[in-house]
């Protein structure tokens, strides 16, 4: 195998992860339609302001999930007179012009189009009133009106009435480089962790998942190795502090405000315990238990269904008997059905 080959793993867990990945993948038709709308927005903005547009988010990064509900695009607005920026004019007037331009140029094609720009922290929200994925309520776009940072790296992007530093163009470059060097396994594994995150109350945002992956996925990996490596790295990083901006421009990436940082780490520790137990079952030769544990890890029957539970119970009993052969006292801890450790050698009792 050369360094550029994608590692293969013919295991139950790896096969199931790839199956799950295919279930959450966006269809080419949906992607094409989302890109078409994004390009229409970009064209409208460039006609209004000149300057350059950039793409960001899951579609640009190749890790979009089904259902596809939004797209991200930004415009870097020329400011030759240096009127805008921290301590100068805020982004309000630029956002209003951008919103008007989008309404003017897209309203004919999307009659239910709504554009919201007031009292929003960063982006202009475009509601198309027309979903890309059937069955979804709508499809939206987050549009950022940015200006160049004349004295440092990156851009200034809106933060209500003022500006924050960020480098979204560099972020997209970094993710594209990671996708190229990993032969797209970076994007594939990211999709799985994004789906896990979505099913577990979204402790961190999608960009945080990718920022963490940039720190640990540096070549082609199997999906099994992606998840193991990513969880180890996420636990290590978030135990120290919030994830730094990979571009080194913006502040650390915030976690979901409904969680404390240590609660996020706990969620990942639990995920790791569940995933490790799936791998242990596989090593021990119990594929059905590995699949059951993987289903527990994901917590989503549609993407990773639990196998037949009667069979799972039967095989679990078989394993229990094999691993704990004696019903007499064992001197040490015995094998458990739990992901959280071995079982103490106790005797069940009743008064």
């Amino acid at each position: 195998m050369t360094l550029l080959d994608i590692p293969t793993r013919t295991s139950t867990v790896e096969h199931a992860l790839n199956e799950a990945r295919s279930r959450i993948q966006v269809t080419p038709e949906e992607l094409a339609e989302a890109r078409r709308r994004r390009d229409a927005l970009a064209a409208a903005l460039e006609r209004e302001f000149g300057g350059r547009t950039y793409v960001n988010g899951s579609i640009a990064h190749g890790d979009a999930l089904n259902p596809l509900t939004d797209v991200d695009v930004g415009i870097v607005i020329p400011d030759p007179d240096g009127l805008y920026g921290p301590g100068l004019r805020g982004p309000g007037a630029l956002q209003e012009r951008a919103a008007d331009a989008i309404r003017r140029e897209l309203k004919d094609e999307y009659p239910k189009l709504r554009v919201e720009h007031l009292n929003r922290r960063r982006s202009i929200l475009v509601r198309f009133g027309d979903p890309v994925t059937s069955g979804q309520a709508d499809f939206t776009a987050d549009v950022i009106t940015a200006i160049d940072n004349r004295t440092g790296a990156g851009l200034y992007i809106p933060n209500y009435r003022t500006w924050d530093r960020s480098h979204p163009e560099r972020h997209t470059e970094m993710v594209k480089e990671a996708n190229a060097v990993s032969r797209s396994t970076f994007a594939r594994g990211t999709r799985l962790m994004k789906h896990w995150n979505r099913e577990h109350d979204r402790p961190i945002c999608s960009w945080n998942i990718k920022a963490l992956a940039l720190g640990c996925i540096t070549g082609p990996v199997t999906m099994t190795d992606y998840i193991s490596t990513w969880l180890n790295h996420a636990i290590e990083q978030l135990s120290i502090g919030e994830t730094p901006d990979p571009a080194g421009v913006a502040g650390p990436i915030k976690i979901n405000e409904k969680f404390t940082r240590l609660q996020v780490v706990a969620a990942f520790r639990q995920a790791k315990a569940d995933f490790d137990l799936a791998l242990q079952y596989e090593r021990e030769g119990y594929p059905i238990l590995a699949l059951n544990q993987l289903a527990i890890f994901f917590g989503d029957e549609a993407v990773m269904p639990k196998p037949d539970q009667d069979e799972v119970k039967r095989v679990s009993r078989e394993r229990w008997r094999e691993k704990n052969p004696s019903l007499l006292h064992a001197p040490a801890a015995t094998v458990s059905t739990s992901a959280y450790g071995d079982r103490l050698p106790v005797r069940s009792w009743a008064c």
Partner: protein
Amino acid sequence: MPDPAWYGADVAWFVPFERDAFRLFGRRLRVEYAWEVLRHANPCAVALSCGSWIGVGFGPPRVEAVPRRRYHLDGVDVVGRVERVPVVIEFRPHRYFPGGGVRDGRDFPVVFAGEMQDSPHRYEDGALCLYYPDDPAEQRWTADKNLAELIVLVQDHLFLEDTYAETGEWLAPQAEHGFTEEAKRAA
């Protein structure tokens, strides 16, 4: 006023005890401080760990507030079950076992998880009988092991109950019910 010896209010006890469990379960685990008001009439009665009451003689009527330290885990996975099972683990100052006397509550929490009518290893109030109180400390759960290890026992116990319901077999070692082993040894 809480008893100054009440370990459940002592940070030196509960911080190391619960640390690993919170590190693992995060916001899925919460702790509740509660008081149970006991009204001792004349004659007095004592609640057994089984959930029933026995008279212990005559005494003046009085009201007593007994502290509880209660952990709620929103659910544990049990092999072969689709839904998670919520767990409540309650620590009391002491726990009384009929025939076995009063024990240090730290090592004998009351654990509730799911229901099973004919389980061979539950108390009358539905609490789980996880281990034999008179086994040596290394062969039962004690508070110096941590809360997470107790939760492992709970998960296995529920799996063992499900197995028992289907096959009539209890797959793990069992002690005789009651404190008969001591009685036999003493005889």
